[in-house]
């Protein structure tokens, strides 16, 4: 909106009265965290459902989980953890004014995200090929516990995958800002915020992994 006139500079000694277009990094961070809480609770609702159904159908869940590929799951976990590292490193890089390093690290993050999604694609294709999907033929021979397991699997990993895509887009935008010097070593809250979002996506997977892949 509107820049302030000189009259306001007068009150600078009394401070706190920043011009209307003031930059508030702490407030921006706060806002991002609040948004992360909504995402946490969105997934939290599904984790609650998982907990409830696992409690009720312990056997069915075990049987269904045997189908999961622990190796791919573990690889995906490592991918996301590493991508979290690269995002954190990119912030350290921009703080030290190393723009090129920062951007390289972010490219690497995107690469990890992409690899994660590719893995997911293969996993899902395999299951779908075997007729294991909501409304699919294989489910007709399954117990309720198994059906619910796969239902939750698809919804939760699907929604998570969607958030990986969103996170990658977010990071993409931030990379554009960095290359245009809109994000600098003294003005990088946007990068931090993108990083926060990405770490949340990682944290959700940290819980999804043991719950779906390590049930035996």
């Amino acid at each position, binding site marked *: 909106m*509107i820049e302030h006139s000189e*009259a*306001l500079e007068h009150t600078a000694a009394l401070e*706190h*009265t920043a011009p209307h277009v003031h930059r*508030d990094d702490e407030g921006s961070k706060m806002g991002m965290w*609040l948004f992360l809480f909504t995402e946490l609770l969105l997934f939290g*609702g599904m984790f609650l459902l998982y907990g409830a159904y696992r409690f009720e159908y312990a056997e069915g869940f075990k049987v269904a989980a045997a189908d999961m590929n622990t190796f791919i799951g573990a690889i995906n976990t490592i991918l996301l953890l590493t991508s979290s590292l690269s995002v954190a490193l990119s912030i350290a890089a921009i703080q030290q004014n190393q723009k090129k390093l920062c951007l390289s690290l972010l490219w690497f993050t995107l690469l990890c995200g992409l690899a994660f999604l590719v893995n997911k694609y293969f996993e899902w294709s395999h299951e779908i090929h075997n007729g294991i999907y*909501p409304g699919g033929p294989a489910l007709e021979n399954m117990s309720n516990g198994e059906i619910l397991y796969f*239902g939750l699997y698809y919804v939760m990993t699907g929604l998570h995958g969607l958030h990986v895509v969103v996170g990658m887009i977010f990071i993409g935008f931030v990379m554009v800002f960095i290359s245009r010097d809109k994000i600098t070593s003294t003005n990088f809250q946007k990068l931090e915020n993108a990083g926060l979002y990405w770490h949340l996506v990682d944290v959700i997977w940290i819980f999804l992994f043991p719950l779906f892949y390590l049930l035996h």
Partner: protein
Amino acid sequence: MADTIAAHEVSYLEYEGKHKGILGWVLSTDHKRIGLLYLSAIMVFFFVAMTLGILMRLEMLTPGETIMKPQTYNSIFTLHGVIMVFLFIIPAIPAVFGNFIMPIQIGAKDVAFPRLNLFSWYLYMTGATLAIISLFTGGGAADTGWTFYVPYSVRSAQNVSFTTLAAFVLGFSTIVTGLNFIVTIHRLRAPGMTWFRMPLFAWGLYATSWIQVLATPVIGITLFLIILERLLGVGVFDPALGGDPILYQHMFWIYSHPAVYIMILPAMGVVSEILPTFARKDIFGYKQIAISSLGIALIGYLVWGHHMFVSGMSDTARIVFSLLTFLVAIPTGVKIFNWVATLYKGSIKFSAPFYYVLAFIFIFSIGGLTGLVLGALATDIHVTDTYFVVAHFHYVMFGGMGIMFFATMHFWFPKMFGKMYNEKIAVIACTIIIVGFNVLYFPMFIMGYMGMPRRYYDYLPHLQGWHILSTVGSWILVGGIVFMFGNLLYALLKGPKAAQNPWGGTTLEWRVSSPPTVENFDEIPVVTGGPYVHDKPTYIMHPSKELVHQDGDKSKKEKVTH
């Protein structure tokens, strides 16, 4: 870019910035204009939902068919609930008055994220549009009741997906508003305004915003799962595939109970503004009222199971939830007693907003006390899912939040529009509303006790007398409401100019012009005391002029910086 001088002198209503005409409104990031954008939309939807209510009561004049088929009736009460809950009661006070007044009250020029604020309005309009579209596509609006219980919501042939999608999008609007307010209140309070010098309206909004942020996502995922269930047959809520319908109810009410506190806390915040103003006395127990807002928000998360006493929940859960439900009466009682104590030995100036607040306290108390009947397991078994419940929630939601919405409109009308309404008509309209309200809803307590189930299209003949009485009440009520809005509309177009501070209010919004300028303040004020002090000013409106003149009184300057 407009020049600075214009922004300081011209009212927000007349200001012309980068965009002209209507674009200057729908693309505005000014919290005041956004508040009015919300007001226009909310008013339209309130009238739509009110009309649906009138139609419902017309149908219930006789057992069996009166003016519509049973299927239509089911869709109408569903839509009445969806529109009233998601498009009116939840957003009304926060999105209109929270947006407009709160930043001024805390001495800020706008909210923390003005563009996000505008985005929240677009989300609201999108959700609203989806709700309307659901009426005309795929078999018509959902007929499940606004609670969308499974398994019927998964099986119903009606357009449940569209209606739930609308609610999902509206949830996002709520979340964005709540997030914005939390950051605004943390970061943008004027210098000297400590937490315990903040107006109680802001406290109410702060507590509300936390509920909006933490509870809404749960219904988001729940409704999303309903849509997935209908489209893909995932199985999470379908009993045929092992799903648990009671789990759906848990997840639905985990949000929808805290939602009622989203509805009432801002309203209670306004009560805490109106009473000290018209009693011309400091509020009694400021700290207790502020903390009780947080208390209600917190306990509100713990009681959702009281909507599920007959669902098939375990006995343990029923006892736990019943006990927790009684606890919420404590912080609520704290407020009511403190409000009454505020009036004691006050110098009371009677006026329409004050009158509405008195009505609120009376009506909301009835609603609250009947909540105890519902919260106690033994009595709930008898009255659950009857008209008793319908009466209870209309007393607290409509008689509570609704009446306070009317009060709030009258209270801040002169500030927002710079015009004054006709006081006599406002009071008469209020009286008609109070009478109509009680004639409409009180018989429902009796009907419920006598066994009239809720959401039923048909009923036994011995109840007809009560139904007719109730319907007549609905006509009186609507008459009063139309009269009230007519009065305000007339004032908007042709009313006399209002003073800057017609009520003698002590909070910051009464220190700026009516209507406010675009940036609210020429300079951010400095706060030196509490918000409801009547005998001396607790704000320094032009610190650069007034404080500089205090001949190097360094202690004063230091006090100000933190």
